[in-house]
């Protein structure tokens, strides 16, 4: 046990160009990838959508992007962060966003 403690107490005397931060800090932001929370995924009917932009304005995470002048380009949702809250589907005036269960957890 004391040997373990001795090892802990030794500063890393390495020549590697790294150092270590002390205290509660995250340097890997896995927890911010809120897409892992999702149970339902928004699926947009691109053909029916008129690019009004309401879903993007209401999205709490601001992760819906669209080209309002060019309907040939798809509306996209960044699924890395989308929590599947369904607000986009709820506010869509044309009802062209469906909330589809994610596989494996239906």
């Amino acid at each position, binding site marked *: *046990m004391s040997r373990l403690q001795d090892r802990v107490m030794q500063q890393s005397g390495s020549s590697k160009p790294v*150092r*270590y931060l002390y205290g509660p800090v995250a340097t890997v932001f896995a927890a911010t990838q809120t897409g892992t929370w999702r149970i339902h995924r928004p699926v947009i009917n691109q053909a029916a959508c008129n690019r009004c932009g309401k879903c993007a304005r209401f999205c709490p995470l601001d992760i819906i992007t669209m080209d309002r002048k060019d309907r040939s380009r798809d509306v996209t949702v960044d699924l890395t962060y989308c929590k599947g809250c369904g607000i986009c589907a709820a506010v869509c005036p044309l009802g062209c966003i469906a909330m589809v269960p994610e596989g494996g957890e239906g």
Partner: protein
Amino acid sequence: MVRKLLDGNGAAAEAMRLARVQVIAAYPITPQSPIAEKLSQFVADGTLKAKYLRVESEHSAMSCLIGAQLTGVRTGTATSSVGLALMHEVLGVASGLRLPIVMPVVNRSLVSPWSLWCDHQDTMAERDSGWIQLYAADAQEVLDLTLLAYRVAEDPRVLTPIMVCMDGFFVSHTSQPVEVPDQEAVDRFLPPYRPQNLYLDVDDPMFVNDLTPPADFTEMRYQQKVGFEAALEVLPEVMDEFARHFGRRYDLVETYRCEDAEAVLVTLGSMSGTGKYVVDQLRAQGQKVGLLRVVSFRPFPADRVRAALSRVPVVGVMDRSAGLGAEVGPVCTEVRAALSAEGRQVPVVGFVGGLGGRDLAPKTLAAAFSRLLEIRAGAPAPRTSQWIDVRADALQLREVPAGVRH
């Protein structure tokens, strides 16, 4: 009497209902929230006739209780961690005014790092707040110690508020069968509250918590010291009476298989049960080990600790708080002081473990015992605290490229 499945939070709420608290002011905080919720439910469904004050903080909760208790009613609250820290200022008001408030505290570590989980730093930070501190080891003890705490706190010789401490999650959220006494039986043990000291009455005015000059301050603190000394007598008295009423026996300290022990580990809270389990296992392997559990940390029963350890050649203490800046953790500091006061040169090894929710699992406590037995066999005894469950990479947790911003 009815046998119910309760966790520590449920047992605390049942005890406060059985004690017929009349005013409740509580602010929810993990892992105490179920106490606040259950008390609220009891008031809503009429099984507890009390006024439930919704407050915006723990500081306000305790402030409300102080005012309520001064009008001559028994009061109830509970808190945890940073909630207890936010109460800090008013804890001293309650104890200085000699108000016998009983408060379950669900032990959770203090910030920072942020944690929801168990260690004892929150209550250790309040060990000089003028409150008695009892540490329950399971849900049954939460119920029993809370009930007897009212009798001790309200005793005219004591008049000191009491924290009934329970380990977050390991007691607060762990369900077990609990013997819940009938209301009539509790009423016989715990009569209705009658203020024995300060009270507020419009027909008989007092001005409490007034500015006290140096000419009187020391004497009023001394009154509190006398109250704590009396508590060392009153606690066992009330515990004996509790045993006569309910059949379950408590004491200031509890010894477990210490008779011929070569090494004894001193524990506090829920680790004590796990410690007894480990003692049984090691005894079955022929190792002479025992356990001394501190039930009352404030007042600290130094005489009883000395007596229990008088013939033990090696002592260890498991602190569930870091005791930063001290040679050893706070419980170990007390044990060392108690033993050295008698001039004993016995090694007292301070362990630190179980911080921020890390489980003090049987293997961790077994490691502490084997360290003690090594010392018994001749290994040198360390003076400073031994962090029994720290990982080897403690100083290399968060790697970043060197040279950035420096």
